[in-house]
């Protein structure tokens, strides 16, 4: 675990965008019986998700969120020194989507732009990478974009993943200001478990072919997917989760000399009601301090933390607030963070 701290950098504003298209999970029954679907949906607590219409990409969701952020906060685009796009559902294999977004958003040539390929921990990673680059005197204002169309990554015929994922995008404005004080991060990378969540076909190791696109029955339960769709070894992911996450959260609290009571809100990656319920019980957290968007957006990967802040904490963060963020996912990767928000500006969520 790597422990990082920064001074006088923070989140000034957040804006989120979601697709208009609402999926009612109880009615997502084209491949499974209504009874079976109901059992799964009740357990995971994901009742609705948003699916981007054909032709809408993660970058389009981020574009909409960023334009709203610029308008609501009267931002001069010429002042954006850095823009980072975090996603595993880019527009193209090349160039990096951040360059396309730079052009569409009308950001100047002196804006540094790049993509980060990461899933559920991608908001926390995006923050510490942006904060690190902001140690340079010339980088004063940055845009962190998190966008995913995870609904397209998994097979609708694989009951282990078919009901979990949704699409969303956010834009987060990060600025330097002494008022933000100190912020803290714990970062762990666990490549030994890289095969727990994976898409094995369609990259350069197993290039796209008729074979990688073929749907196959993959287990004794009759789940069906192709090698170009994601799989998740849920039990083993959960094992790692219960071993790593309560400990990571306790570690960041103790390293930074915080008590649970010092934290105003615990914003966790939204994976399933089951996992977040486990975490809240294990750490004996007051549920009113653990906002959730699982029921309406499902798991939106790296977007889940900022979209939960935008949706659930919209009017709950006046003045100064301490947030503890924590996420866990593909890599495997886990990360926690304690940040202070001061008069954070949260835009209304845009639908496209």
């Amino acid at each position: 675990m790597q422990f990082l701290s920064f001074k006088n950098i923070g989140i000034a504003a957040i804006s989120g965008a979601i697709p208009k298209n609402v999926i009612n999970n109880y009615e997502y029954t084209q491949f499974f019986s209504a009874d079976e679907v109901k059992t799964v949906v009740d357990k995971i607590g994901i009742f609705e998700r948003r699916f981007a219409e054909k032709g809408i990409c993660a970058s389009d969701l981020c574009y909409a969120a960023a334009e709203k952020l610029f308008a609501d906060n009267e931002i001069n685009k010429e002042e954006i020194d850095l823009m980072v796009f975090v996603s595993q559902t880019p527009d193209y294999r090349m160039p990096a989507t951040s360059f396309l977004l730079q052009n569409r958003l009308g950001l100047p040539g002196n804006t540094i732009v790049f993509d980060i390929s990461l899933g559920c921990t991608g908001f926390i990673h995006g923050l510490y990478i942006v904060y690190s680059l902001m140690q340079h005197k010339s980088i004063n204002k940055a845009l962190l974009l998190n966008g995913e169309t995870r609904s397209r990554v998994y097979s609708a015929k694989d009951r282990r993943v078919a009901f979990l994922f949704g699409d969303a995008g956010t834009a987060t404005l990060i600025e330097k200001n002494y008022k933000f004080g100190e912020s803290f991060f714990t970062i762990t990378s666990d490549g030994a478990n890289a095969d727990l969540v994976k898409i094995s076909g369609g990259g350069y190791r197993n290039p796209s072919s008729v074979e990688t696109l073929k749907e196959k029955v993959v287990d004794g339960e009759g789940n069906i997917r192709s090698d170009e769709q994601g799989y998740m070894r849920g039990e083993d992911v959960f094992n790692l989760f219960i071993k790593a996450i309560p400990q990571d959260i306790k570690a960041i609290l103790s390293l930074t000399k915080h008590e649970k009571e010092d934290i105003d809100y615990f914003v966790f990656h939204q994976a399933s009601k089951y996992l977040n319920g486990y975490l809240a019980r294990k750490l004996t957290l007051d549920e009113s301090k653990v906002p959730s968007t699982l029921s309406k957006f499902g798991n939106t990967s790296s977007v889940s933390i900022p979209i939960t802040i935008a949706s659930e904490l919209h009017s709950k963060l006046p003045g100064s607030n301490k947030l503890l963020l924590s996420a866990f996912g593909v890599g495997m990767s886990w990360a926690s963070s304690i940040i202070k928000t001061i008069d954070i500006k949260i835009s209304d969520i845009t639908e496209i």
Partner: protein
Amino acid sequence: MELKEFVILFAEQFEDTPTEQFTPETRFRELTEWDSLTALSIIAMVDEEFEKQITGADIRSVATIEELYTKINSK
């Protein structure tokens, strides 16, 4: 922990299947209610009660509750 106690804890992870239906010989993966989320409840229960980690492969490698109990104790 006694096997009898383990069977009761195991049964508690199920919402619809009646507790009386569970015995050491129960082939749990064949129960209608069994799914990957029940497996998570079993993993969490074993972590709490035994402070031991069982994997997805461990669960798939056994048929009955007693075999799982033996597997946990051999760890």
